[in-house]
Every structure is written in C-alpha cells, then in structure tokens.
C-alpha cells in the first residue's frame, strides 16, 4: 500500500490549490493512472476517501482515467506498448517499476533496434489532470 503516499500528495495538492484559489470546497478531482506504474485504482481510491474526510475535499468526486503506456525509441523512432514487452516484464520487474517507474530503463530496450535510449511518451504514472473547485 505505498499508494497511500501517492494519495497524500493528491489530497495535499488539491487542498493547497483550493486555498490558493479561495475555494470553499473541492468538487471534483480527475486523476490519471499511467499504465506503466500500475497503481491499483481501488487501493488509491480507498486511501483518497480516507484522507479527504474532514477537509475541503470531503465531498470531492473522484474520477479515474487510465492512460496506456507508450514507449518511443530515441535511436530509431519506433513506438511500442506494454503488451509488446510483456515477456521482459516479469512480475518482479513490474513490482520494481510500480515504485519507481524510471527503472523500466534498467529492464527494457527497443524491440526494433535494441537501444536502451527510449522515452516513456505516455502512461508513466499518476497525475492530476483536472480539478473543479467552488
């Protein structure tokens, strides 16, 4: 459950944003979950629900969007997705990536040219896409 730490960041950010904008309440938080980090929505949602109690976000609607991971090779330009790297991504490695997504560079390389110099174009991790305050 290291998701709790991520949830603390999200609620903390939302409250700070609310205060900076003199909001009375946070109505909605849209959270993107990147496929690479593989954060479990239920666990994150549970933590968020606990943490928002007794804050200006207590009634905030939580909306989750999944974002597929896309990798692009800086050497040859090839783009690929998680499914194509399924074999390399053993359960152990997936867990390492769950904590620090960048370690994907220790384990994957471009399926076309073999380069380790690739970019995670989309779907890296968790971020707040949108917030509605009032």
């Amino acid at each position, binding site marked *: *459950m*290291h998701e*709790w*730490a*991520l949830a*603390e*960041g*999200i609620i*903390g*950010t939302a409250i*700070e*944003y609310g205060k900076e904008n003199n909001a009375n309440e946070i109505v909605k938080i849209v959270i993107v979950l990147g496929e690479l980090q593989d954060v479990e929505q239920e666990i994150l949602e549970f933590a968020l629900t606990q943490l928002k109690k007794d804050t200006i976000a207590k009634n905030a609607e939580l909306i989750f969007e999944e974002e597929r991971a896309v990798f692009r090779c800086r050497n040859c330009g090839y783009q690929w997705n998680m499914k194509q790297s399924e074999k390399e991504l053993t359960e152990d490695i997936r*867990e*390492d*990536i769950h*904590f*620090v*997504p*960048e*370690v994907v*560079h*220790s*384990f994957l390389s471009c399926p076309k040219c073999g380069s*380790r*110099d690739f970019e*995670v174009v989309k779907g*890296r*991790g*968790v*971020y*707040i896409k949108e*917030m509605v305050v009032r």
Partner: protein
Amino acid sequence: MDPRVKGIELKLKNVRRIIPIVSGKGGVGKSLISTTLALSLKELGFEVGLLDLDFHGASDHVILNSPISELPDEEKGVIPPVVHGIKFMSIVYYSTDKPTPLRGKEISDALIEILAITRWDQLDFLIIDMPPGLGEQLLDLIRFIPRGEFLIVSTPSPLSVNVVEKLVALLKEGNHRILGIVENMHAGNNLTEEMAERMRIKYLGEIGVCDEIDSLIGEPESIMLSDFGKNLKKVAERIVSGDRPR
C-alpha cells in the same frame, strides 16, 4: 498537476535537518563521507536517514554491504530498511543494481518519486549522497528542498578545486545554506583551505589519505574505526555543534 511535489513536503515534515553532500567533482569521497557521516551521527545518538541520489553511480549500498534483493516494506508509503542503525534508501532496491541509463528528465522523475514515497518519519538528520555535476539532482534539490544545508567536499587537487569553486559560487549566488567544506585526501597543499577563505565558507576539517579504505568497503564498523572514520567523527561533531538528539 504533479501531486508528488506536495508529497515531498509532507514526507520530510518531521525531518529536522537535511544535509546534501555535494562537490561538483566526482571521486572526491562524497559517498564514503555521506555514509560515514550518517553512521557517526547515529553513534552520537541521533536518528539518521541516508538517501543515495547518485542513480548512475550508486555506491552507499556497496559501502554498507546492504542487502538489496528484497523490496522495502510498503505501509502508507515505503519504509526505508534499517541498515547498521540508519534508515537507508537507494534506487538500487528497484533497479536491482543493474545499469540505469537515465536521461535528465528521467532522473528528475525518479528523484521526485523516491522523495514522495519514502517515509522517513522522525529524523534528526537526513544525509543525501549526491552525484557529481551541476545537473538535475542539484537543481531539483535546490528547488524542492530549499532548506537543505549543503556540505561541500573537495580534494586538494587543482582539478577538484576548479570545479568545486563553481558549485560554491552557484550555491552562494542563490543564497543556499552551506555548512562548510571538508577536504578529503589532504596532501600537504592549502588549495582547499584557500578556496574556502576566498569563497567565505567554513573549512570543516581535513581527512588524510587512508590507504586501507578500499579494503574496508563493505565493512562499515571497520571504516568507523579507521583513520577515515576518526577524522569524520570530528567533522560530525562540528556539524552537530550544540544540537542534541531529541
């Protein structure tokens, strides 16, 4: 919006003092000093954390001979494993000490992630072992942890002094807190001390060349008993000055 930035603040709330060990120059002993300083402060009774932010050249796990095959426990975050009495966090738990060819943006992302999930809880000191250079880690620390108190390391070599002086200039210009400079592998000349004077930073003492140090890597107790360890304890006492464990 990146929720991790707020996360960093929350995670470091109960850490009293944060000391990044920096130099600009590589191979001057940042990692040996970071690790030994952390152990020295522990010996003085403080609660201490050690964070290795040199992702490409992670060394502290080698110095501590710390096991890295098991993932740190998860519990409302990540609990840094206790190694020789200090809480220790490094990317090697996750990279399993394989090469990590990361570009700047990726280094920055990994750094933010690690700071945002690691639960140091109550600490008197968090020692941060930094890579050489004036790159992402330095700029990110300045940005995300403005209260860091930088400890500078140099050797007496003109090559080191030239580079270190630039780092000091940068930190001074930005009004960042500088604890002072430690001279490692002292060798007779006064280049480091003169630079400290020129730049108006505190000279916190010297550590001589310790021929046995390489044979003690992986045995932190022996490092503590070596001349290197003894000299560093004096530096630790100077850093602590009046401070007492809470």
